[in-house]
């Protein structure tokens, strides 16, 4: 009895005007210490350094490392290859977001209706998401082979014009986009499907009782209620498409014909690890981050406005 009451007595400390139980504060400090160290070493320090290095001529091959102001940024803004990489990234990201999101939404809406083999179908659409990028890129490299790839063989069997796929500057990036959509589609399908299944059936039934047509249910009930998920998918999509690297690096190691498949990450990788220009690569990383950041903000703002106007 006495033991229990002593265990119940709680030591308290006051930190910044708020009272805490000291045992909890101590436990939190111990338990969070490893995570805190990881965040400092793997996130905070590198973030500070990438900014600092971006103002230097840090070069691994010559060993130079001196402050050079905005010279890296000035160089980047006059570099054709950098501009090409930015343009490629925007093309890639726009097409991917539009095609991927609308296709995934359509598939999810169809999967949400009464159909047989629903479970198998969902698994089939999701399967490419879980397989490693490199291993699946290898399959598609063969698909894209102009001579002995199945794509061209099918096209020519049907009497259609064939393509050079990865080996022509006009089609190389689009080929990687095809792969990328196949690979990533299932992720959004699963998210949209979960969102659709969260919509109470009573909403839809009530609308049907009132004589709403299928398209009215879709545009007046399902899509508005899906809006939060659509905006989440877009945000994640922006961040993810601007990070794309592996498939481009595997399918077109040199950045494709006339640098046509090089995305921003490929440019950063080449600058840092092929040429050793760490400072310049850091500046490019900062620009990449700022673009992603700005797009995310614009996206959130736009979406908030839409939600308000709807209500």
């Amino acid at each position, binding site marked *: 009895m006495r033991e229990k009451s002593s265990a119940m007595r709680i030591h308290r400390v006051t930190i910044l005007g708020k009272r805490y139980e000291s045992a909890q504060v101590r436990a939190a400090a111990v338990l969070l210490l490893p995570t805190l160290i990881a965040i400092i070493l793997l996130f905070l320090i590198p973030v500070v350094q990438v900014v600092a290095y971006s103002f230097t001529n840090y070069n691994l091959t010559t060993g130079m490392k001196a402050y050079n102001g905005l010279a890296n940024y000035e160089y980047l803004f006059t570099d054709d290859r950098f501009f090409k990489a930015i343009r490629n990234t925007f093309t890639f990201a726009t097409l991917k977001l539009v095609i991927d999101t609308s296709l995934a939404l359509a598939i999810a809406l169809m999967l949400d209706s009464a159909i047989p083999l629903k479970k198998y179908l969902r698994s089939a659409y999701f399967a490419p998401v*879980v397989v490693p990028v490199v291993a699946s890129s290898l399959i598609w490299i063969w698909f894209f082979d102009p001579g002995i790839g199945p794509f061209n063989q099918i096209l020519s069997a049907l009497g259609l014009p064939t393509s050079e796929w990865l080996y022509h500057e006009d089609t190389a990036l689009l080929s990687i986009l095809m792969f990328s959509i196949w690979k990533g589609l299932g992720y959004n399908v699963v998210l949209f499907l*979960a969102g659709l299944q969260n919509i109470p059936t009573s909403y839809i039934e009530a609308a049907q009782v009132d004589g709403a047509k299928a398209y009215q249910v879709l545009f007046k009930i399902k899509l508005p209620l899906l809006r939060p998920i659509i905006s989440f998918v877009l945000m994640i999509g922006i961040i993810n498409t601007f990070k794309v690297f592996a498939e481009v690096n595997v399918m077109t190691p040199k950045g494709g014909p006339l640098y046509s498949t090089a995305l921003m990450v490929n440019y950063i990788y080449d600058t840092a690890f092929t040429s050793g220009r760490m400072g310049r690569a850091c500046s490019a990383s900062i620009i990449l*981050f700022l673009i992603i950041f700005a797009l995310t903000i614009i996206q959130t703002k736009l979406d908030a406005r839409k939600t308000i106007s709807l209500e």
Partner: protein
Amino acid sequence: MAKKLKRMSIPIFLILLLGSIAMIFPFVWMILSAFKTVPDVYAYPPKWLPSSWKFNNYVKVFQMIPFAKYYFNSIFTSTVQTAIQLFLSVTAAYALVVLDFPGKKFLLSLIRSTMFVPIVVTLIPLYLLVSKAKMIDTYAGIILPQVFAAFTIFLLVSFFSTIPQILYDSAKLDGCGYYRILSEVVIPNSKSPISTAMLFSFLGHWKSYTWPLIVTNKATYRTLPIGMKYLVQESSSEYQIMMAASVMAILPVLIVYLFFEKQLVKSITLTGLKA
């Protein structure tokens, strides 16, 4: 229900079935082609089925590149990364959900902010840090920079918040300290979320590409994805051999996926919808 099924489903089902065949086709092609011979690969009109079912291509993969070593490296680094990541995530998530301490809000937003800075942005300082620590071409260099992920922390935070408060209170009344509440209440009650997080982080590490690529120069430290990237160049378009290697890299993941699909999908939607 029955009326709806009759009216709507058949055309939609056929469209989805056709689409699903397109999604699965690359895998079927890979598995069949891993048995093909060189003449099969170059045959015109194309051969869909291999002319024999021998495992020669698989043997050749092991002869051409140190495939077993790559496999070992991938299993080893992914396992250690997953273990450390889970340790960090479980302790952090528990503290963030259960404990009251100063700076909690700040820490939460700090962890969240790491999700908005893609790893490519901090890649170069990390590489320089690792190279200064003389950890290029070491397992530590591959493993340590990849052990922190806000994603698993938030996954576990969302699961831990669903543990009923009464379990914590009664453990406290029994005189459990905060470490024992973690080891005797939270962890035993979260076996399935923790195994989900484990699965997720293992799959993530298994396919990790950019970091292992830049931090390994010697072939002996290459992980599977990196080894396979170089196989493309070294095999000079011997597709049937590339397919055999792909089968060996993809099949374990597909099998894991088929077993744990429900968990995977559930946690994607959970974190996806909550974020």
